[in-house]
């Protein structure tokens, strides 16, 4: 067992868990934050995307122990009293159908908007499509996801 200390969505948590526990298992099973999904076994779909110390990472390819000491933000942690602009944009632009990939898409969208802004680069439609390389959606065909991220970028 290993002691994992994390700040998750602003709340400090401490748990003793098996060393082999993945961050996604820690979030879903220990903290019951089931908004973070598992969509594959090969680290390719991005449904499990969360922010660790301000960067988008696949929580299915990170051990809880590796993350210990860090700060995690999940889909449950981005809204205040109102939806986050990225969530609102997915709603307004029909950026989801079944919703399975959506938490990962939203976290990926927020990450790319922040990164491009920090680097002073324009987040073009082509850039959004390239940035979504690690997020797979089986329903939407991506067009409305791209539209949603563009719209949110203007609001953030």
């Amino acid at each position, binding site marked *: 067992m290993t002691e994992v200390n994390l700040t998750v969505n602003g709340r400090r948590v401490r748990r003793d868990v098996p*060393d082999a526990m993945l961050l996604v298992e820690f979030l879903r099973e220990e903290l019951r934050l089931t908004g973070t999904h598992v969509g594959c076994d090969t680290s390719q779909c991005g449904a499990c995307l969360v922010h660790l110390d301000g960067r988008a*990472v696949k929580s299915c*390819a990170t051990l809880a122990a590796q993350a210990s000491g860090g700060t995690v933000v999940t889909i449950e942690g981005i809204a205040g009293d109102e939806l986050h602009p990225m969530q609102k944009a997915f709603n307004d632009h029909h950026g989801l159908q079944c919703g399975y990939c959506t938490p990962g898409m939203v976290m990926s969208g927020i*990450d790319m908007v922040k990164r491009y802004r920090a680097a002073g680069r324009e987040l073009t439609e082509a850039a959004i499509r390239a940035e979504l390389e690690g997020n797979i959606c089986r329903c939407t065909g991506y067009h409305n996801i791209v539209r949603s991220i563009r719209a949110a970028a203007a609001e953030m």
Partner: protein
Amino acid sequence: MYPVTYHRPASVEEALHLLAEEEEAMALAGGQTLLPTMKQHLAAPSALVDLAACGLSGIRAEGGGLVIGAMTTHAEIAASAEVAAHLPVLGLVAAGIGDPAVRHRGTIGGSVANNDPAADYPAALLALEARIETDRRVLAAEEFFEGLFATALEEGEIVTRIHLDPPKRAAYAKFPNPASRYALVGVMVAETAAGIRVAVTGAGEDGVFRHAGLEAALDAEFTPDAAAAVRVSPAGLAADLHASAAYRAHLIAVMAARAVAAC
């Protein structure tokens, strides 16, 4: 995943000690290859020695070249001002690896230690004549990359730093597998102090390799046409559900020509 014991040592010395102590222990860097492999039960180390707190990350300009810590992530290399100033081609290679989340955790040390036959850095480091520093020695890329997932690393040996000198010119052209983004074929063309170097990844049955025919052709005439005219033999190239050996052979000349055009 099978049970495993996790360690996060605070120095390379401590990490070496932990790796030596337990026979089935493995180093853990970004975990972007090792953790998925463990989930599939293709690797079952008894202990993981996380190198994150060993002070192995960072990029430094030194003597006109670059020294890159093994734990430096692909995203850090892609965004580095030092890399952009001294070795922009390496930044482009890093920016083309996998997807943003993989780049946020995957490291250059993990990639070279793993020596995946379709990985990007092995081709880049081989063509750029990089030197790979470990806890006990410095190896030329040529000696380091031995074959399919095989390197010159001994049991418990840790890659600590990568040393690179800027080439006169260089470019990398990759034909990514549309699903995985690994190289179906990737070709790094570089003109170093020693001459023209052409390194190929994704194609060799035995991992990354230099192509003598392309090097000779480009040495005689450094143009895309000269590269495209080389008949690459499919002998020794990989054939799988993604591509036949003959297709990979064709792609090598095409990618080499594109790299020359981008130099």
